[in-house]
């Protein structure tokens, strides 16, 4: 016991000694729970950006950014709040990358980030409700709001000649927000929604949901869920029973695993996914692959950009403090300034150190609008020959 006390006292001393060259950045994702298969790549991407900054040695005279992971669970607001509390109080983080799912993100922002003045940059929370939370300008997101995606998807579905569709959404803040926005826009375009049914993630059986959806009918089934969760369960059951042949997918359904599992049967299905074409995305793919991270996994680009923005805001503010990040994040994200691609963070740090301006483009063409959220470009795709084919960008 005494040894243990001595050891912890010693490590506490070392800890304080190192504080001058080190700052903690919280990474709060759902490492357990419904999206546990996506989060390892997301966290690795965010850590990749932090490592790139730290290794360059150019951040405030060689400051190192240390990632501290915490589990948001994606669904349990109380657990996420407790985890974020720990990041803010005991790990003393400068800023937080996360959270991931819209529900827990709202809880963490309201209960922890805003009261403590800590900036949160979420790579993946897309609920329209997050645009209007009372955030004291502390909440940012690199993912666009689903209010926009609903509009884009409604147009895609209508343009493909579907005038009557059934809608199913995953029963959480993300699914609800997206389905509301989709239905509102789709009906404004003159379409009819025959049924709007929720499905729970991670359940054993979706025959009941598919039965109801099939009975209501429609020329296509709009699935606003997750590709490795209830969404794929509903699609599989709908295909098996012959209830629907054509599907329209929200961004959560975009995944290679979906094609691997059901690719042949999804011929002609359509969908939308936030996308970034061009140089940024390509460079990110190279950088990520070199570091052993899978760049094609969902929200990896956004995660990298979230962490990079925090690092650049620290440099611009000249100190690793919560205030500095809050005050400078929009500056480094938007024009004017030198365009910064993934893998060029060292260059950006140099420019900022000399008093210059940067416009972080990153992997997702970051441009933060309104209350600090991405404007968003969407890829309108169709599944042909078991592959995603781009129709156009919207």
């Amino acid at each position, binding site marked *: 016991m005494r040894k243990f006390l001595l050891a912890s006292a010693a490590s506490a001393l070392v800890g304080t000694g190192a504080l001058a060259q080190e700052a903690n950045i919280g990474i709060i994702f759902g490492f*357990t*729970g*419904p999206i*546990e*298969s996506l989060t390892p790549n997301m966290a690795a991407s965010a850590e990749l950006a932090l490592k790139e900054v730290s290794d360059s040695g150019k951040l405030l005279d060689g400051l190192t950014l240390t990632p501290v992971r915490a589990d948001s669970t994606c669904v349990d607001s109380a657990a996420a709040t407790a985890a974020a509390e720990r990041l803010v109080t005991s790990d003393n983080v400068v800023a937080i990358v996360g959270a991931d799912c819209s529900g827990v993100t709202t809880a963490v922002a309201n209960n922890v980030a805003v009261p403590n003045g800590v900036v949160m940059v979420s790579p993946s929370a897309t609920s329209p409700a997050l645009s209007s939370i009372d955030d004291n300008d502390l909440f940012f997101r690199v993912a666009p709001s689903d209010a926009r995606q609903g509009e884009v998807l409604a147009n895609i579905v209508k343009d493909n000649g579907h005038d009557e569709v059934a809608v199913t959404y995953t*029963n959480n803040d993300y699914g609800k927000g997206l389905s509301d926005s989709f239905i509102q826009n789709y009906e404004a375009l003159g379409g009819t929604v025959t*049924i709007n*049914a*929720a*499905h*729970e993630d*991670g*359940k*054993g*059986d979706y*025959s*009941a*949901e*598919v*039965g*109801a959806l*099939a*009975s*209501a*009918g429609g020329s296509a089934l709009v699935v606003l869920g997750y590709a*490795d969760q209830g969404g*794929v*369960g509903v699609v*599989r*059951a709908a295909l*098996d*029973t*012959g*209830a629907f042949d054509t599907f329209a997918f929200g961004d959560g359904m975009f995944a290679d*695993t979906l094609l*691997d*599992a059901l690719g042949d049967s999804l011929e002609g299905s359509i969908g939308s996914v936030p996308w970034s074409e061009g140089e940024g995305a390509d460079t990110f793919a190279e950088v990520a692959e070199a570091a052993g991270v899978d760049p094609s996994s969902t929200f990896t680009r956004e995660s990298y950009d979230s962490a990079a923005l925090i690092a650049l805001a620290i440099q611009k503010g000249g100190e690793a403090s919560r205030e500095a990040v809050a005050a400078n994040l929009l500056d480094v994200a938007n024009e004017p300034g030198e365009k910064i691609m993934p893998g060029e963070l060292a260059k950006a740090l140099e420019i900022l150190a000399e008093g210059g301006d940067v416009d972080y483009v990153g992997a997702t063409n970051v441009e933060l609008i309104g209350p600090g959220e991405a404007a968003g470009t969407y890829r309108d795709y169709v599944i042909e020959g078991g592959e995603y084919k781009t129709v156009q960008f919207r």
Partner: protein
Amino acid sequence: MTDVLNALVLFANFVLVPGVAYGAQLALGALGLTMIYAVLRFTNIAYGDTMAFGAMCTVFATWWLQAAGITIGPLPTALLALPAGIVGAVLLCLLFDRTVYRFYRRQKAPPVVFLIASIGVMFMTNGLVRLIIGPDDRRFADGGRFIVQAREFKEMTGLAEGLAVRSTQALTLAVAVVVVIALFWFLNRTRMGKAMRAYSDNEDLALLSGINPDRVVFWAWVIAAGLATVAGVLYGLDKSFKPFTYFQLLLPIFAAAIVGGIGNPVGAIAGGFLIAFSEVTVTYAYKRFLSYLAPDGWAPDGLVQLLSTDYKFAVSFVILVVVLLFRPTGLFRGRVI
């Protein structure tokens, strides 16, 4: 006449066939749970993850067989790999029995202590599965996927509605029937089965008559782990293998075992089908079904859905609460929890 046929096919396709398959999956799971309860007298929360562990072992064995080029025609290779999975799950259960449950058994701890201990075991198994195979979705089904496909059925019969029967659904039912017959034969005809029932009825009397409790406990775990693996693999074949869903499957399995009367094998089977069908029938939208049967112009405008699918889990739990209130022993006279 065609309309009536269409309505029947529609009902079979969306309610009957999925309900029967899901019911068989739940029934197999509930059987194992009920065996543990009858013999060891505690509610095993770790059961869902035992299913995941057994299924995981089977997945690995299946991949090994597939890589070696061994298949069994139209049937899924996983059936061949099943024994390996069962051995894995049995070893895991026995390991936890020796290290955890035996300690409490010797202390004659009350059931609630066992229950809490099994929650700990659940988290350990849970972590173990994620550590070994990871949290991702895995497909290991091969062989023919359908017996009857919806499109073929339409062309064959000329009806407007299709009927689809997946081979895994038929397989689930067939395996469930075989396993249930074997289990009843074991419990009623063999020496060990009778010893097990005696031990379950009255432990002291059973011990006095010379029954070896260690053997009874051993076989109870073997059977429960075997049933868990079979249920887990059939479920994984029908849908896909993902550790997280097994944990979620625990709730309806519990509901099935308790509604049927926990500790009673017949009850577990009846409970499984009752829960499955109540989930599907109460939330089914009867619009299309009725529009075939109703005279022209009388087709309903609304969906004719009793409850939205959001409430499908509430349905099983309402049944559970009602049964416990009015008949605490369950439908088939199990024990009172």
